[in-house]
């Protein structure tokens, strides 16, 4: 094996990136499983699976990149279960009623779930050395996780969820401002 030093270094770097990608592909599989479960629960495959694939791709990219964005994937996925469950519950309760009351219940549930997720993510983010990057990464993952359950309810609940999760940015920004030199 007469590989010179530069080639060996390049191969090592390539294997390092491939190793990270392999790990990211494996660790992101729960996103697909979650989407499949939701598809089974709501008896609608297309939207949950399409968003599940998007979530999987986002998770792979963030985990491969690593650092603060990579560390945000797990809290995002875990806390994203709050708006997801809220949306699923509202989906069943809301469709028992009709018209504007259904929309109100769904929007309120998605907003409430999103707010809880956003605040929990903010709590984790402010303890990190790079709170903004971690919050943005975790919030994106949490939003996509929540949307798996909420997308079939329409645009307003999804917008409500996004706004509520983004509200978690306030404590992160305040904390960053307080700790700024």
């Amino acid at each position, binding site marked *: *094996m007469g*590989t010179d*030093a530069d080639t*060996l*270094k390049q*191969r*090592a*770097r390539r*294997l*390092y990136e*491939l*190793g*990270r990608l392999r*790990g990211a592909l494996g660790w992101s599989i729960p996103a697909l499983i979650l989407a499949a479960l939701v598809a089974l629960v709501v008896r609608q495959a297309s939207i949950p699976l399409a968003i599940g694939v998007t979530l999987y791709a986002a998770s792979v990219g963030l985990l*491969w*990149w*690593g*650092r603060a964005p*990579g*560390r945000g994937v797990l809290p995002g996925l875990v806390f994203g279960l709050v708006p997801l469950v809220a949306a699923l519950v509202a989906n069943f309760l809301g469709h028992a009623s009709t018209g504007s009351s259904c929309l109100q219940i769904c929007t309120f549930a998605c907003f409430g779930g999103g707010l809880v997720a956003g605040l929990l993510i903010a709590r984790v983010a402010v303890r990190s050395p790079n709170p903004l990057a971690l919050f943005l990464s975790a919030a994106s993952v949490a939003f996509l996780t929540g949307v798996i359950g909420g997308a079939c309810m329409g645009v307003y609940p999804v917008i409500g969820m996004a706004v509520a999760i983004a509200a978690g940015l306030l404590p992160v920004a305040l904390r960053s401002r307080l700790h700024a030199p």
Partner: protein
Amino acid sequence: MMVRLADGDRSAFDGAYALLWPALLAFCKRTLVSSDAEDAAQLALLKVFDRASTFLRGKDALTWAITIAAWEVRTIRRRHSRSRSTPIEGDEHVSPAQDPERIATDHELVEAAQAILGSLSPDDRATLASTFAEETPAGVSGAAFRKRRERAMTRLKEAWRRIHGN
């Protein structure tokens, strides 16, 4: 540095490479002949970076890398021992004992073992010799000997790590 690399900090790559390559090469050169040592060190280095993202915080990076290198050394040795054990027709006059590669490897191993044993105290050496001979010295109870043996083995492992791990 490996923790940073596992976290995705690419700026730690050059530093980790610069530290690991000479350490792995030196380790492999102590146990294999030069050409095999370079092969083993390269394979170990590539595996270390391939698995870098799974490196756990709190582990000793050098010990982890050396463990991977030790497996590569073992694999190469096994490959050689398998190829030696296969009889080659028409090569019956060559004695395995006269194989220069084997003689060199054996010599290096004996030297390494002597160096490590030499760094131990006479008591530890005697305890290890008795262990090797599967006998308990006269006047020493079984429990006391087991304790002595355990301590001698710990010091032997520490000496091995000190000499071959750095």
